[in-house]
């Protein structure tokens, strides 16, 4: 019957769209998982100066923001379940559910090696950066413009992929270096002046 055919076509189109949308855009939870994975791999691709680790000290990753459960917990669980290490060092995960820069945050900043600024953080990136100063901390954000703002690495969701943008100057400034293996897949940006 003609009617039935129509319905079918619409259903297919809709599903296609849906799929497409699905296929085309990466859903959020998946993106978070990817980000977590990326984070781990980024840690792998980064080289801290020797002085930043004292005696087998683990690499500490600080998750800043309130939506820790989104990425952070996944990250942590993965670390824990798979006993992942980076260059032989264990990883220590911390979270601070703050959205603003305060003394607690500042204190924590002094002890982490990697700072992951989650999207729920609303504070000024620049302030954070200043608070970090020249300390070799890998600062990763969740938007593509993050590096433009002075952050080092920004992770963003694009259509079919997770985009990585890197501010090399910022990286260099803090005595960090990032492997080309990561860089070749990243967009190199410069700080907006």
């Amino acid at each position: 019957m003609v009617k039935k055919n129509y319905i079918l076509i619409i259903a297919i189109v809709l599903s296609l769209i849906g799929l497409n949308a699905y296929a085309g855009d990466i859903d959020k939870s998946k993106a978070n998982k990817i980000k977590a994975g990326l984070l781990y791999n980024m840690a792998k691709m980064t080289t801290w100066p020797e002085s930043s680790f004292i005696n087998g000290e683990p690499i500490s990753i600080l998750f800043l923001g309130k939506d820790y459960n989104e990425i952070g917990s996944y990250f942590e669980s993965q670390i824990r379940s798979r006993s992942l290490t980076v260059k032989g060092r264990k990883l220590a995960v911390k979270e601070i559910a703050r959205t603003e820069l305060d003394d607690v945050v500042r204190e924590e900043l002094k002890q982490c090696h990697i700072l992951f600024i989650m999207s729920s953080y609303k504070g000024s990136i620049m302030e954070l950066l200043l608070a970090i100063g020249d300390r070799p901390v890998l600062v990763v954000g969740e938007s593509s413009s993050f590096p433009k703002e002075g952050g080092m690495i920004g992770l963003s969701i694009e259509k079919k992929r997770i985009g990585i943008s890197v501010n090399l100057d910022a990286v260099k400034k803090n005595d960090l270096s990032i492997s080309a293996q990561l860089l070749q897949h990243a967009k190199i940006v410069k700080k907006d002046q």
Partner: protein
Amino acid sequence: MNILKLYQNLSFKRKILLYAASISLFSLILASLAFMTYDAYSIRRLLVQNLLTETNVIGATSASALVFHDPAFASKVLASLEEESRIVAACIYLEDGNIFARYVRRSAKYEFPKNHSTSSYQFEGKYLDIFTPISFEKSQVGTLYIRSDLHELSLRKTRYILIALCVMVLSLVAALLASNVFQRIISQPVLELVKTAKRIAKKEDFSFRATKYYDDELSDLTENFNEMLRQIQNRDSDLRESEERMRSVLETSPVGISIYDETGQCFVVNDSLAKMIAATKEQVLQHNYNELESWKISGTLDKAKSALKENITKRHELIGESTFGQTVRLDCYLVPFSSGRLLFMAHDITNRILAEEALQKANDELEAKVRERTTELEEANTRLIEASQLKSQFLANMSHELRTPLNSIIGFTGIILQGIVGELNDEQKKQLNMVYESAKHLLGLINDILDLSKIEAGKIEIIPAEFEIRELIQTVEKMVFPMIEKKGLTLQVAVSEDVPPTIYNDKNRIKQVLINLLSNAIKFTESGEITLISDFGLGNADLRNSAHFIKNDRAKRYNKSEIRIPQSEIVFSVADTGIGIKPEHLSEIFDEFKQIEGPLKEKPTGTGLGLAISKKMVEMMEGRIWVESVYEKGTCFQFAIPVKEITTAKRAPVISPEALDLIKKLVLTIDDEIEAQEILKTYLKSEGYEVIQAYNAMEAMELAKKYRPFAITLDIMMPGKDGWDILHELKEEPQSEPIPVICISILDNREMGLSLGAFEYLVKPITKEQLMKELCRLEKRFRIYDILIVDDEPQAVELLAQYLGGETNNYWVAKAFGGKEGLAAVKERRPDLIILDLMMPEIDGFEVIRHLKKSEGTKEIPIIIVSAMKLTQEEVEYLMKNFTWANVRGILGWILGWIFGILS
């Protein structure tokens, strides 16, 4: 199997080629296959390797893209595979199996397979699929899949096959070419042999030879083959030759020959047979013995059949008819061959039979005639004997009759001549003397005739007795002296020392012969000398000092009997310097009535019987007479009378001691020097030894064995075989071994001599005393003992004599029957031992002992008393005092033992 058969029957050349080709082909194919397989395999591996490497590279490159979610990058990386023409498709799988990035050549449609997530590769038809895990930082983040096509591989394969094929073809060609060259070398000698064999077979000519090629086993074969041909050729020609010979033999043989085959058909016949049965050869060749009437009737066919069956030759007489109807008798042989053929050989004996019959008849006639003649002869013989007897009687009577008046004439004229009945004047004397002489001569003639007839009648006897030779010779000398003197000749008489004083023979006959020879000598010698010599000789040696004027050996040897047994002889020789005898007369001289002209060519005197009678006499005495003469120079008549050798008969006959001596004391002297020999001879002869001389080894052995001398003297230093050799030989020979040898040499080598078995060893120069001493020693050791048996009982004497006189014993036994005889025997010859019986008539044992004791020469003679008599005490004492005694007669062995004891 068909292929094999095909191959088997190919020509030799092709075989070799095929062999070479197939081998190279097989090996090429195998090699190519092997290499190809290996190549394919390794190429694949290589391919996989290559691809893996690529995938790894790409994987490594795109690893980070996977991690950092940069599909664009990954796609770009994959896109670089465009360069690789063989890569058909490639994709990167995420861990969940979704495709992260892809590449398809020329954007063709391709459906990617499911993810394998482990490293693997797979050949899918025309493609190679490889899955490689992509790892980032030691952990797998995805899988890379690449599909490559295999066209390169297949291209390579094809190329390879092509090349292989090309190579195979080329090498096959090359192999064939090369093997063609080489096969020639192999096959040529073989083919040559084949060719030669074919030729020979075809032409039946064995003179062909195969050419020898090269130098290997085949050339050896060729050589051997040729050798074989040579042999066959030779054998063939030999065969032909022998066949020809056989044929010629067959044809020329007077024996009729024909051969029949297994069916009985004749296929060979010679002319002789054809002639025998008066047929032509062609006719005979048509014969089959199964159909021949003549064979059937005469039983020859049956014989032939049985000969064939038993396979032995049979003889048969075939009596048949020739084609002309004549009776033919053939003596035939039927010889079967194993092949069933029969050889028939025949002699025509028709003539022979007739001849035999005629012979038989002649024989019978002859026998009859012979019988006739025999009876005639017998009659004649009886008549002759009668006549001869009559003649002898007549002669004897007549001689007697003649002699009686002659004796009167001689007697009375003798008396008258002696002047007993009155004086005679010279003329009367002269004339009466002539009468006397004539009468005497006549008497002589009559005596001669009588003698001769007596001899012929066999009435002359030889009466031997012992007589002294020297006496006889003297008598003879005296008898002929007047004749000698009258003729003005000289007479020389010599009797050799060797001649024994007495011999045992007929004195008168010897005298007669001597007188005869001497008178002949005188008669035929005008001037010069007559010599009479008597010598003792051994064997048939000539008188050593005979015929001193005869130098030539040729002039002698008439009527010498060839007696070669050693016997002692007395040889008499009468030599003269008379007219001699012509050689042609020498043979007749001893014949009756044969006379030779006198020296002055006057008519011969005498009866001509003298020599004939002498010859007869000498021969009756078992001697021989002979003459040597040189015409006009002189003549020498010799005769030898044997002195019977004394044998050691079991009965120990009484022999003349001299003979005993001779045999006992013969010494053989061996020396090469004449002077030495003469010296020895003188020594020995003077002591009564007889000597024979040998001058070399051969003579020595001969004489030693022949005469078994009592002793041998042996000089050591001699040329050729020296004394040592001779000594050795003497001791080796059983005949000469017991003879004691005295070595005489310049060198002193006594030990050697004695060790080789010599009795003694003397060093030259030796004196007579030395020699005699040794010989005495020898005698004592080896002497032959004289034993005198004195017993009145002949049996006892004989018994003892027999025991003692055995051949091997060295005892000469003299027998005396009774005491008187015993003493006489002792006187005659001193015995070494006396065996004396006590109990004897007339002169008994004691008496004998007493007599013996009296004389110096006999008192030391040892006596064995043999008696059964019981002796009185005194007698015993007497005997005990003077003798050692044995009293048991009958225990002869013991006695003999005593004898040994005493004598040694």
